[in-house]
């Protein structure tokens, strides 16, 4: 059984007990514990169930590589599934439940799968569940989905906040072990701006656990002194709980800081996402120990040898009383020695190598530990947890030589450098046969914008497993990075570590090497996803020879640990099955992030109101206070209608239309784009931008203009006013302002850069109000300040002046068909002007109106709306706008495109008005049908509705649409199909429904 030792535990503070809950049990731990060490201290070996077979799962590792021990953490708005217990720091009140079982962790119905495992090999689901066909959706899939997944879905809204951070460095060192600290010290000394980060809460990595001696000091002391030295450097920033998550092109580094995971009650963001630009990155990310594939290696109580050691040294927790160590390298002997020194029993070290280990073997034997060389584990005994192991010869097929009772198995299959960050952005790996590992190939490092390498790897991560070598390597890496980043490197000496000589590792991918199929079916590679040696071998037999195929077919390495423990073992098995060397098989692609990072952190502050910027007009607050039903238009929010109490939105819209037509309406038109185009060549330029002739527009007048893209399609429209000899003001649609501004800049900068023209987007400089209706002039006259008579400002002209003491530019333009003034005032006075109009307009029946009223009134007048009548495939000619296309101009944007055969085709659908025979409103987007089907069996169509409304003015449905030969078919009745299959008859009519002669706007 696992328990807390009476002594030891360098990271725990036994003066600070902490209480937590696991599956409803109240348990005790200490400050400094991880949830893993605390669970183990309470003999909670069983912590979860595997993905596929629902096998019992215990903790197998002590860090980020843990595949098994994932829990549901927290409650309510702080609930989070799939939290890795090995990287969860314990805090008072922590609440965790285990995952992927029903009804309980100890008794899980799903565990029946383990008895069916033989029938559920890799990829079984591709070969069955095909009949009867509907069963996949209704029976098989729901069952599979329910038994898959791991943690529960969060239900409540996230109670935490997150933030983003931008940072810029010369050198970023990832990893706070002795290699990372050495590299950081060297980079720091060069004067470069340095960040060094450590993903856990503690500096020092493995060296402090292993008691390495550096420069004559114990590693712990050396680490403390180094951290202090770094802290003292002004150009160096050091951070714990900060993980290098991903390396991207051009020196972009993503890092993930866990600020409040261990202090959930404190205020402040939970996570912080660092977006770093750095000249150089040093990955001193260490290595991860590999499991060994033997039968029963997935039982709770079988653990990585280094993890067993970590729990004793760091947290004072023993996994078992009797630990059998099984290894193919010397390092695991350290575990045996640590256990023995802690007063625990190590019945045997099973070393698969005939020759056994070096000096450490002598030390172990000296402590009285039995060392068996050339031996292997035939299988682990026990149900639900380890009770013993059967020993056999590694060379054989598993004939049992001996059985040893034990409650823990510490395994080590060698070490794999953490090459993830090196690989994210294209760094390549090479196979090191002697150490049986992939390590970074410095000749093929990730290259930055300059084409030079920007990632350097250091220490164990670079394949230097011995501390002495790792320090020399890290020293050089730190200096190289500093130099490459422009730092000044001074003479210096690498720290010196003393390690015992070690015998070479022997690659052991299967134990025993001739294991029978029965054993191979119980030898796990991927503990979480239940992928066994036999599965990978089956994949190879079936032709899934590429490492990517084998991964995807078996799901090896696709679990939440992304194969940190399983990948190398799996591809070694695959290589063996294919009779090819491991480097020929290659690895799967390493993708960010290194370990999963919260979606909350990725989204950052951008939630709710802050999700996207909101653009508000100067009158926004009035709208908000007066019943505005807003609609988003780009980042703007415009009132759709002003709803009064007791009204529906529809009622409000009708009221606004009638009131504007009969009395006086006000529209906040501030969002309309306003672009100043100025310069000696401005006229020539606008002649290219618009289909119309703008250069001939007289000063003081307005002209409606159309813009097309180079494909000939209509992209924007608006009224252009000529301000003076070399200045034009172009109105664009609300959504078009930024786009058209950019479009103009594009042509001016990249095509006609010798033309003398400036464009300024002054949209937000002005508040603009449309004063509309028969009483429009009256209210302006009442406010006074300038002559707004027909004679002073005729229709389609503009004038500058003052209204009520506010500087104003008044345009006589109308999008409603009524007498209408669009008045631009400085934005800062927009609200005052609006209030003035409301007050003065009271006696004239003033009411503000929203965008829907605007739409209806323009439709009644047959005016087109960009986005309704156009959809990116419509050309001006389709909308009978030939009058707005200059015949005199040789060229304008889109002209050549409109000459193409399909554009010039007389059969294109053209704009008409539509009226249903029964007065009803045509459905939006409905199509007019013709008899017969096309060659693909689709119903033939001859037109479609582009705008359709109930007209309160005419009290009937009105619509516009594009119809084949429409303008030639006035009076014809065509049929529109509704979605329910019925049809509506509509007559083709003139698109102008109201005041056909335009008398009302021109008074």
């Amino acid at each position, binding site marked *: 059984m696992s328990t807390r030792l009476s002594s030891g535990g360098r990271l725990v503070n036994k003066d600070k007990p902490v209480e937590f809950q696991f599956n409803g049990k109240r348990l005790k731990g200490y400050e400094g514990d991880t949830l893993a060490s605390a669970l183990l201290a309470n003999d909670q070996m069983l912590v979860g169930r595997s993905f596929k077979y629902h096998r019992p799962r215990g903790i197998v590792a002590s860090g980020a590589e843990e595949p098994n021990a994932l829990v549901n953490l927290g409650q309510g708005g702080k609930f989070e599934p799939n939290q890795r217990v090995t990287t969860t720091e314990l805090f008072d009140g922590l609440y965790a439940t285990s995952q992927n079982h029903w009804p309980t962790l100890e008794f899980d119905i799903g565990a029946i799968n383990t008895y069916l495992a033989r029938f559920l090999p890799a990829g079984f689901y591709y070969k069955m569940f095909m009949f009867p066909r509907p069963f996949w959706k209704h029976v098989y899939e729901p069952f599979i989905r329910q038994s898959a997944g791991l943690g529960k879905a969060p239900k409540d809204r996230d109670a935490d906040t997150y933030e983003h951070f931008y940072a810029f460095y010369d050198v970023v060192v990832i990893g706070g072990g002795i290699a990372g600290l050495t590299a950081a010290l060297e980079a720091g000394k060069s004067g470069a701006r340095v960040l060094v980060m450590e993903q856990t809460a503690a500096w020092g990595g493995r060296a402090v656990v292993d008691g390495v001696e550096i420069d004559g000091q114990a590693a712990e002391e050396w680490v403390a002194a180094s951290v202090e030295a770094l802290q003292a450097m002004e150009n160096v920033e050091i951070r714990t709980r900060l993980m290098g998550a991903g390396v*991207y*092109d*051009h*020196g*972009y580094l993503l890092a993930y800081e866990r600020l409040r995971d261990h202090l959930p009650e404190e205020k402040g963001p939970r996570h912080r996402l660092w977006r770093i*630009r750095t000249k150089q990155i040093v990955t001193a990310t260490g290595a991860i120990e590999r499991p060994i594939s033997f039968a029963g290696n997935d039982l709770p109580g079988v653990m990585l040898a280094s993890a067993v050691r970590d729990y004793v040294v760091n947290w004072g927790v023993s996994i078992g009383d009797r630990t059998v160590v099984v290894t193919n390298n010397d390092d695991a002997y350290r575990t045996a020695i640590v256990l023995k020194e802690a007063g625990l029993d190590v019945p045997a070290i099973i070393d698969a190598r005939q020759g056994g280990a070096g000096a450490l073997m002598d030390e172990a034997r000296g402590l009285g530990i039995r060392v068996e060389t050339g031996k292997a584990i035939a299988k682990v005994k026990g149900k639900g947890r380890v009770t013993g192991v059967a020993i056999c010869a590694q060379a054989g097929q598993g004939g049992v030589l001996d059985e040893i009772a034990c409650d823990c198995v510490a395994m080590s299959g060698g070490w794999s450098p953490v090459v993830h960050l090196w690989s994210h952005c*294209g760094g390549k790996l090479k196979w090191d046969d002697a150490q049986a590992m992939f390590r970074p190939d410095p000749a093929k490092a990730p*290259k930055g*914008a*300059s*084409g030079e390498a920007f990632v350097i790897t250091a220490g164990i991560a670079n394949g230097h497993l011995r501390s002495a070598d790792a320090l020399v390597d890290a020293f050089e890496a730190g200096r190289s990075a500093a130099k490459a980043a422009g730092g000044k490197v001074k003479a210096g000496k690498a720290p010196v570590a003393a390690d015992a000589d070690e015998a070479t590792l022997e690659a052991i991918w299967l134990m025993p090497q001739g294991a029978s199929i029965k054993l191979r079916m119980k030898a796990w590679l991927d503990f979480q996803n239940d992928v066994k040696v036999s599965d990978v071998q089956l994949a190879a037999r079936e032709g899934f020879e590429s490492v990517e195929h084998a991964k995807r077919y078996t799901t090896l390495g696709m679990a939440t640990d992304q194969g940190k423990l399983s990948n190398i073992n799996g591809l070694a098995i695959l290589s063996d099955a294919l009779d090819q060397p491991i480097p020929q098989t290659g690895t799967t692609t390493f993708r960010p992030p290194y370990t999963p990072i919260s979606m909350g952190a990725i989204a950052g502050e951008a939630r709710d109101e802050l999700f996207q910027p909101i653009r508000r007009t100067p009158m926004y607050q009035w709208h908000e206070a007066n019943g505005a039903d807003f609609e988003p238009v780009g980042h703007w929010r415009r009132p759709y209608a002003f709803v009064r109490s007791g009204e529906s939105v529809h009622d409000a819209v009708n009221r606004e239309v009638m009131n504007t037509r009969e009395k006086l309406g006000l529209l906040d038109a501030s969002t309309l784009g306003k672009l100043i185009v100025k310069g000696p060549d401005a006229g020539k330029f606008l002649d290219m931008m618009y289909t119309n002739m703008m250069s001939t527009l007289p000063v003081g007048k307005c002209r409606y203009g159309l813009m097309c893209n*180079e*494909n000939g399609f209509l992209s924007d429209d608006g009224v252009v006013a000529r301000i003076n000899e070399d200045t034009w003001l172009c109105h664009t649609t609300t959504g078009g302002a930024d786009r058209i501004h*950019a479009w103009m*800049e*594009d042509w001016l*900068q*990249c*095509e006609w*850069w010798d033309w003398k023209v400036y464009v300024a987007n002054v949209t937000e400089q002005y508040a603009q109000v449309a004063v509309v209706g028969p009483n429009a002039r009256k209210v302006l006259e009442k406010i006074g300040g300038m002559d707004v008579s027909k004679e002073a400002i005729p229709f389609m002209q503009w004038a500058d002046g003052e209204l009520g003491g506010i500087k104003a530019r008044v345009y006589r333009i109308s999008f409603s068909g009524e007498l209408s003034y669009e008045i631009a005032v400085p934005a800062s006075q927009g609200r005052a002007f609006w209030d003035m109009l409301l007050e003065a307009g009271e006696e004239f029946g003033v009411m503000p109106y929203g965008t829907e009223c605007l739409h209806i009134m323009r439709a009644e007048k047959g005016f087109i709306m960009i986005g309704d009548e156009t959809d990116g495939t419509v050309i001006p000619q389709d909308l009978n706008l030939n009058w707005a296309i200059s015949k005199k101009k*040789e*060229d304008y944007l889109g*002209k*050549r*495109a409109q*000459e*193409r055969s399909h554009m010039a085709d007389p059969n294109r659908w053209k704009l008409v008005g539509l009226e249903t025979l029964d007065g009803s409103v045509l459905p939006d987007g409905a199509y007019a049908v013709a008899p017969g089907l096309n060659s693909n069996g689709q119903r033939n169509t001859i037109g479609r509705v582009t705008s359709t409304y109930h007209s309160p003015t005419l009290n009937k449905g009105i619509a516009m649409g594009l119809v084949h030969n429409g303008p030639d078919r006035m009076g014809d009745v065509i049929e529109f199909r509704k979605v329910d299959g019925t049809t509506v008859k509509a007559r083709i009519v003139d698109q102008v429904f109201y005041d056909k002669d335009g008398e009302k706007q021109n008074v």
Partner: protein
Amino acid sequence: MLTLKCPYCGVHADETELHPGSEAHLKRYGPGSSDDEFEGYLFMRENPKGVHFERWRHVYGCGKWFLAARDTNTLEVFGTYSAQTTEPPQEIKEAITAKRPGWSWREFQ
């Protein structure tokens, strides 16, 4: 995540400050051009796996369009330069030749 140096304001701009604008050195064909010329201008974009010339706008910076020579396979940037030119400057061409001898792109090499 690219960074490109804006040749106008000298800023090493992050990709999020920039707006990509597709192929550089396009010659516009308007009315009077053949179908082939017009199709070539508007649609037949260079799409090399390697050296490429493209347009970028420093949209959240100085607002200027500029041109970049970049490798689409390694994302290496050979240089950026003014948009107000019909061909890459000599020093850009030389910079590319130094790294990718024998390169060619449209009529340039």
